[in-house]
């Protein structure tokens, strides 16, 4: 086959060339059977198959589909097909199937009719008419669809930029408590000397209390000793606070001061630390 025909858009506002033959636009489909050999192939490419071609033949002769003049149409169709074959064009198989169907319909119409078969299925043209009509509906639908205003041809998306300093929202990763514990286990497996860093529930709350006291001392220069205790926590809470204060003092993170005997005891961050 030669070069495929450039697909033409379905715009109907102005007559589009049916085809281009050696650069010349063919605006009208040929009225008679004589078609220059070059045009023939291009012409057939302009049809979307045998149904499209048959519709063209029917319309050209101003027939109604429902009247389907099988004799005339078949004759014309066959002449085109034969011409194509004489010119050794490779015809799509669908055109040959259609030729066979037309021949069969024609021969069946020639057979004498039997009254008992004269229901709606008896006319051998009915199926072809049904197909031609269905195809014509969708051929028209395609044209209508193509006429709809559409993006990138009839309208364009309107958009605005974001400011240059725009920062997208970051979704932070989710972490499960088990992930953290597993991480700790990994460390312990690696560190043989982890025995020096024991983890134990009682000690845990002591260290938490140490953090809390240090936090308070970041906001205030001094804490009164009594402020480190919350009696609602009970005896255990008091012990934990006391241990935390001792531990902080031992680690030289805080300094305990008392001006005189029985005077209030004050906690402050160890010398030189943030105050």
């Amino acid at each position, binding site marked *: 086959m030669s070069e495929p025909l450039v697909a033409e858009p*379905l715009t109907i506002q102005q007559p589009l060339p049916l085809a281009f033959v050696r650069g010349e636009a063919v605006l009208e489909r040929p009225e008679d059977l004589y078609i220059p050999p070059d045009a023939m192939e291009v012409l057939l490419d302009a049809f979307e198959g045998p149904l499209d071609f048959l519709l063209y033949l029917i319309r050209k002769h101003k027939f109604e589909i429902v009247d389907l003049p099988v004799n005339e149409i078949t004759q014309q169709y066959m002449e085109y097909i034969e011409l194509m074959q004489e010119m050794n064009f490779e015809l799509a198989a669908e055109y040959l199937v259609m030729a066979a169907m037309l021949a069969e319909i024609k021969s069946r119409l020639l057979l004498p009719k039997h009254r008992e078969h004269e229901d709606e299925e008896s006319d051998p043209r*009915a199926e072809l*008419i049904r197909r031609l*009509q269905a195809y014509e509906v969708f051929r028209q639908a395609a044209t209508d*669809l193509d006429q709809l205003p559409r993006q*990138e041809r009839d309208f364009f998306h309107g958009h*605005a930029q974001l400011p240059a300093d725009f920062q997208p929202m970051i979704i932070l990763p989710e972490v499960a408590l088990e992930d953290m514990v597993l991480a700790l286990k990994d460390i312990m497996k690696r560190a043989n000397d982890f025995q020096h860093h024991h983890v134990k529930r009682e000690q845990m709350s002591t260290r938490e209390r140490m953090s809390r006291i240090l936090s308070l001392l970041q906001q205030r220069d001094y804490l009164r000793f009594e402020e480190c205790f919350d009696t609602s926590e009970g005896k255990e809470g008091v012990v934990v606070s006391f241990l935390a204060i001792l531990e902080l003092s031992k680690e030289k993170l805080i300094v305990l001061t008392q001006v005189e005997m029985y005077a209030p005891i004050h906690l402050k961050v160890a010398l030189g630390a943030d105050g």
Partner: protein
Amino acid sequence: MNQVIQPAQLQQLIEAALFTSEQPLSMQDLQSGVLAGLNISKNKLQAILTQLQQDYAGRGVQLVETASGFHFQSRPELSDYLARLWPERSPRYSRAVMETLALIAYRQPITRGEIEDIRGVSVSSQIMRTLVDRNWVKVVGHKEVPGRPGLYATTAEFLDYFGLKNLSQLPQLTELRPVSDAELNTVEMTGDTSS
């Protein structure tokens, strides 16, 4: 968390969101996205969108609603001027592509074989790929016949592209002329492809 936003800023926010989003935004998108935590009722949002549509009625871009939501688009009357700015943006589609698309749009879900039956020619893989790549059609299931062919349907992007809210806004199919010829008796033209 509930935050507070001034009414004037709320309209600005919705307007800016619609302009900066690449995709159309539905009311749902707006409420769960840019308006999250602001506690804006659906009625309130609808009122603001209507107000915006009015504000832009006479402008170069308009706020339109299609299948996936609201977005701004240029006035169709300006297309002749704008289209020449971006000729490469507007691909043309062959009759074969448009006929296949029309069949999928009006007869979905439909197999490639059923499309071929109606068109009377084979439908190339290239055509189907063009439509799928364009995100206009997708396979929504498989027909339980030998070979389990894919069933094609159109997408929200297809409707957006053609400026439609839903399939019922597609142009009406032409009425088939009733067959009155006595010779033919009645030929049912339901468009049923089974044959």
